[in-house]
């Protein structure tokens, strides 16, 4: 069974797993990804054998992922509490808050996109849809730029090429510039936000690659 609804639900679920395991130790992250990948394969396979439609299987997979999201976030935060993260309590609080903020932004952004586009389709207003998509591209700009900063730091530390990271920063900056061109007054908030987020992303990256000694 490999019809597109099942493949899409599987991809979304795997994307979610990548998002909520980000920043955890490599072994824990790899195990969770592999376990969910196995579960997805088994569910698709069993559903196919039982004659379930591709849409029903996809809905079940997606439903299981969505219903488990709050628990996944709690699981990630629980892992931060463990001593093997080698962080002080204050640092764990900041890392945890940063993670919750990132997940909330992701979920809110996806809901905003789905809600906005669905509304335009329902009212058959395609010009609004194009405008919405342009806004999404612009709004994603700051996020892409932050990811670029993080990727640059990581590539630099590991001695890899920083070309992809620099591309992300350029694309993100273009998004920000587009937003500035259309609605210049909206640039102030994201600019401050990008500064704060980039600072903490860098700080957290430093803690994780070189944990400070605990007393």
């Amino acid at each position, binding site marked *: 069974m490999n019809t597109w609804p099942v493949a899409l639900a599987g991809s979304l679920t795997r994307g979610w797993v990548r998002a909520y395991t980000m920043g955890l130790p490599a072994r824990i992250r790899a*195990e969770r990804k592999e376990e*969910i*990948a196995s579960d997805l394969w088994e569910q698709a396979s069993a559903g196919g054998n039982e004659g379930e439609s591709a849409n029903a299987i996809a809905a*079940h997979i997606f439903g299981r992922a969505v*219903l488990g999201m709050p*628990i996944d976030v*709690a699981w990630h935060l629980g892992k931060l509490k463990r001593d093997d993260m080698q962080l002080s309590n204050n640092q764990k609080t900041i890392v945890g808050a940063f993670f919750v903020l990132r997940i909330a932004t992701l979920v809110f952004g996806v809901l905003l996109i789905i809600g906005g586009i669905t509304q335009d389709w329902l009212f058959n207003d395609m010009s609004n849809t194009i405008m919405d998509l342009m806004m999404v591209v612009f709004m994603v700009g700051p996020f892409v730029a932050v990811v670029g900063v993080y990727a640059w730091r990581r590539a630099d530390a590991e001695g890899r090429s920083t070309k992809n990271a620099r591309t992300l920063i350029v694309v993100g900056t273009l998004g920000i510039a587009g937003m500035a061109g259309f609605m210049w007054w909206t640039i102030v908030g994201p600019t401050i936000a990008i500064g704060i987020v980039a600072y903490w992303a860098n700080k957290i990256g430093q803690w994780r690659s070189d944990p400070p000694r605990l007393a």
Partner: protein
Amino acid sequence: MRRKKGSLISVEISILAAFLDLKMRGIEDAHGFLIAKQIKDQQSARMLTSHGTLYKALGRMEKAGWLKSKWEDPVIAAEESRPRRRFYSMTAEGQIAFDGASTPQRNARLTSKNTTS
């Protein structure tokens, strides 16, 4: 609220009950999806347990010593062109914890088993 050490919550009782039923069918080791499916069948539920709930509970139960897990040989998975499975099995401590549980879920499960047998 922190729960009492050694006590079981609903999802844990369901998982241990699923292992007992699988054991009666001759299955000692079960991967996550099989456990979720067994719970769904036992409870006649419409949906499988969510990924988050299931795998968080399995991890917690393994840490408590009620379950143990092992990863499948990657060669077998590769031969069958599928991801590697993680097999869980119930330990003697898990059996003791289940026997010692006195929650409505366990009682309900025992009642339903008596009714069907």
